[in-house]
C-alpha cells in the first residue's frame, strides 16, 4: 500500500516537474517581440469591434444540469453493476438487492421529474404548465385592477 502511494507521488512529482521544465525551457529559448498589433484581438484580419462577451441561451444550463445529475448516477452505478451478481449469491443478498434497486428507483424518479417538467425537449412546449398542479388548459384569471 505504501509502495503504491510512493509510486503515485513520484508520478505527480515527475509530471509536474516536467511541465515546469518544458515551460521554462520554452521561455528561455523562444524569441520575444511583443507589439501592439500583435497582441490585438484576432478577428480574421479586421479591426475588432464590439464586445467579445455575450449571453448564452439558458437551455444550455438546463442541459448541463440534467447531464451532471445523470452522469454522477451512472458513474456510481457502474461499479455496483459489476459486483452485483457476486453479492446476490452471498449472505447479504437481500440488502444488496434492496439497495441497488432502490438506487435505480431514485434514478427513475429523477428522470420522471425532468421529463414531466418538459426539460428534455430542446424546444420548450409552451402550452404545458411548469411545475404546479394546475391542469393544462386552465388559464389563471387576470387580476381585476
Amino acid at each position, binding site marked *: 500500500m505504501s509502495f503504491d502511494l510512493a509510486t503515485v507521488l513520484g508520478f505527480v512529482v515527475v509530471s509536474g516537474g516536467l511541465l515546469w521544465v518544458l515551460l521554462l525551457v520554452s521561455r528561455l*529559448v*523562444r*524569441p*520575444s*517581440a511583443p*507589439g501592439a*498589433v*500583435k497582441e*490585438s484581438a*484576432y478577428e*480574421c*484580419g*479586421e*479591426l475588432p469591434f464590439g464586445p467579445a462577451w455575450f449571453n448564452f441561451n439558458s437551455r444550455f444550463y438546463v442541459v448541463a444540469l440534467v447531464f451532471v445529475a445523470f452522469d454522477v448516477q451512472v458513474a456510481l452505478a457502474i461499479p455496483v453493476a459489476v459486483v452485483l451478481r457476486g453479492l446476490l449469491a452471498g449472505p447479504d443478498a437481500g440488502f444488496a438487492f434492496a439497495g441497488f434497486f432502490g438506487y435505480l428507483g431514485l434514478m427513475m424518479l429523477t428522470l420522471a421529474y425532468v421529463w414531466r417538467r418538459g426539460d428534455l425537449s430542446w424546444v420548450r412546449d409552451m402550452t404545458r404548465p411548469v411545475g404546479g398542479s394546475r391542469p393544462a388548459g386552465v388559464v389563471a384569471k387576470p387580476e381585476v385592477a
Partner: protein
Amino acid sequence: MELQFDRGPEGGFAVGTLDALINLGRKHSEWYLLFGTACCAIELMQTGGPRTDADRFGMVFRPTPRQADVMILAGTITYKMASRIRRLYDQMAEPKYVIAMGSCANVGGPFYDSYAVVKGGDLIVPVDVYLAGCPPRPEALLEGLMLIQQKMEREPFFAKASGKLPPPADPWPASARGGAV
C-alpha cells in the same frame, strides 16, 4: 547545420548543436495559416489533400495566425485586402515566413493593369519564397514549403531569438499607412 546521425545496428545517436536540434523540430512542424484569397487557394487546399499530402511533412493548416509559422499568400491581393493581410502578418508570432504563391502574389499577375490589385505581395509583407505559376501545382507549393524548411535549417535559431539577426526589411511600415482600415 544538420544533426549528424550515426545509426548502429540497434539504433544510434545524433550529434549536433542545439540550433540543429531546434531547427529539426521547427522544420518538421511547419504550420501554415489557413488563408487564401483566390484560385491559388484551391491549389493550396489540394496540397493538403491526399495526393500531395502536406501533412506527412508535419505541415498542418491553422486558422489562427498565433499558431502559424508560414503565411502563404495564395491569390490576388486587392487594395481592400492589403490591410487585413498586413494585420494577419503582424499577428503571427516569430519566427514567421511568407510564401508568395502564384503570379498575383508575386507581381500582380494577369491583373497587373487593374486599379484594384496590389502589384505583388512583397509590397505589403516581406516575402521569403516566390513561386511561379498560375496557379502553381501542388507539387510546386510543396517545393516552396520545402525551401522554407531549408531556410529554417540554415538559420541560427538563437541568433534570431536573441535579436542578433536583423528582422527583414518592412515594405509597408506603419508610418506609410494612411487610415486604420
